[in-house]
């Protein structure tokens, strides 16, 4: 397999884009990444998206974005792994270059969620879980995460309010990100007052439904050297799955897909969790942030909350998390989030993260999780 580098990034702000359609968001991020890489056109386009059919009536999204961005004729396809679709699109783009099939490709994640009424969005997102044995029974995606949070609280004896540490941290970091949806801090009091969505998950535990698109340009080593002064190398890339249904797992809190994908990425990169300088976790719900830190090997099982409460996930801290706001405060345009994470990690590694720059960072881990941690994509990036 060949070495793969990131030479361009692009993104739209994450917000409720009433005035911009899906195709325009996708093309805008793609073209921004192309400009940043100073190239004319990619040879292939991998579009990460979960719900274009349900929210916009549009499938065949690879062709749509390639057409609208003016790249008629190139290889283009949609990649879908629920909430991890963005990470999977980066992985598909990585494989295309690593295999030698292409030299320069784009991965773009795009999602348009706010055109639907909230109950319809809730229903569509439930399809990330098992449609016949979870969603059809009225058990929402948030409810399934709530059941995991209940098990966690019961197992480790933590308090519901302890989870606020992930939320406060994410909102703090979003202040330095002009593309973030929520750039204002929240307090423990705000968290305690936040209305319930599915107990014990409150609104502030949950990432917001949003629209947005983010893109990266990937290329081979020789093209990276000729095109870019400071390419970022993808040192590890992996995707792993678990049972689609939460209840089919022997140990629900172990999150085997996250565990496996992290281990594969560490092994490929030849690093350990201790070597990682900062991490973009999939904090769609605060419980998922905690479980991701544990399953990725940064802390022992059950230790994520004390680790966070001690300030380790802040900037500066031993392992800054969600350094540009995370899914929680940057916003979670579902199939785009995995690409936003990679874009944000590149901003940090290039030293372009402004007020929330992680000093002297060289190694980043980004992790995109789909369904009830039924699929996880991990990337390790270095400069």
């Amino acid at each position, binding site marked *: 397999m060949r070495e793969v580098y990131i030479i361009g990034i692009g993104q739209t702000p994450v917000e409720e884009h009433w005035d911009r359609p899906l195709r325009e968001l996708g093309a805008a991020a793609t073209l921004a990444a192309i400009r940043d890489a100073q190239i004319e056109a990619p040879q292939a386009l991998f579009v990460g998206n979960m719900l274009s059919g349900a929210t916009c009536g549009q499938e065949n999204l690879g062709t749509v974005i390639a057409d609208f961005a003016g790249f008629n004729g190139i290889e283009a396809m949609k990649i879908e792994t629920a909430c991890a679709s963005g990470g999977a699109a980066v992985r598909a783009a990585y494989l295309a270059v690593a295999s030698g099939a292409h030299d320069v490709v784009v991965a773009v994640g795009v999602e348009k969620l706010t055109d639907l*009424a*909230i*109950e*319809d969005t*809730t*229903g569509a997102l*439930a399809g990330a879980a*098992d449609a*016949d*044995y*979870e*969603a*059809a*029974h*009225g*058990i*929402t995606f*948030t*409810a*399934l995460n*709530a*059941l995991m949070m*209940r*098990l966690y609280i*019961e197992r480790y004896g933590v308090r519901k309010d302890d989870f606020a540490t992930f939320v406060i941290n994410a909102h703090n970091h979003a202040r330095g990100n002009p593309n973030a949806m929520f750039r204002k801090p929240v307090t423990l009091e705000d968290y305690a007052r936040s*209305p*319930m*969505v*599915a*107990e*014990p*998950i409150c609104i502030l535990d949950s990432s917001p439904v949003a629209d947005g698109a983010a893109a990266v340009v990937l290329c081979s080593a020789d093209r990276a050297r000729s095109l870019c002064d400071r390419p970022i190398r993808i040192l590890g890339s992996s995707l792993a799955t678990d*049972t689609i*249904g*939460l*209840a*089919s797992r022997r140990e*629900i809190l172990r999150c085997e897909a996250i565990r496996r994908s992290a281990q594969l990425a560490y092994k490929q990169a030849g690093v350990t969790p201790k070597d990682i300088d900062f991490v973009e976790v999939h904090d769609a719900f605060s419980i998922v942030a905690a479980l991701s830190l544990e399953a990725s090997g940064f802390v022992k099982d059950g230790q994520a909350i004390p680790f966070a409460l001690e300030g380790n996930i802040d900037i500066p801290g031993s392992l800054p998390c969600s350094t540009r706001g995370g899914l929680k405060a940057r916003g979670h345009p579902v199939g785009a989030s995995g690409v936003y994470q990679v874009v944000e990690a590149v901003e940090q590694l290039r030293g372009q993260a402004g007020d929330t720059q992680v000093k002297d960072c060289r190694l980043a881990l980004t992790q995109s999780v789909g369904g009830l941690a039924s699929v996880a994509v991990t990337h390790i990036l270095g400069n």
Partner: protein
Amino acid sequence: MQLARFHRLKPCYYRLEGTRCAKCQTTHFPPRQRCNQCGATELQSVRLSRRGRVAAVTSIHQPSSGFPKGSQLMAAIVDLEDGVRLIAQLTDVEPEETSVGMAVEMVVRRLRTDNGDGPILYAYKFRPVLKRT
């Protein structure tokens, strides 16, 4: 839900049918094509235990479309007596009356009525075990 899809699901939804591996005796729910423990493909349909205990419970304040707004659905992880674990709605109980370890039993109840006057979908739910006299 599409009618054909619902008809295909009826053995599971009405009778709580799973599969059992003829080789290693592992029971699966939902039904599998291939045993996820030993890889054998010889699986038989089997009716699961109708009783179990609640392992975790949540009440849903923001329901999906098709489910009544303002109602508080309760969802639980249920450990059946035969060792199978599943997720289902709880019924005939108030949120504050639920607890971890609560003994529950399966009943068939209405899930939803599609599009107001469409087909009425029924499926398993779990209620607290009734005291027998």
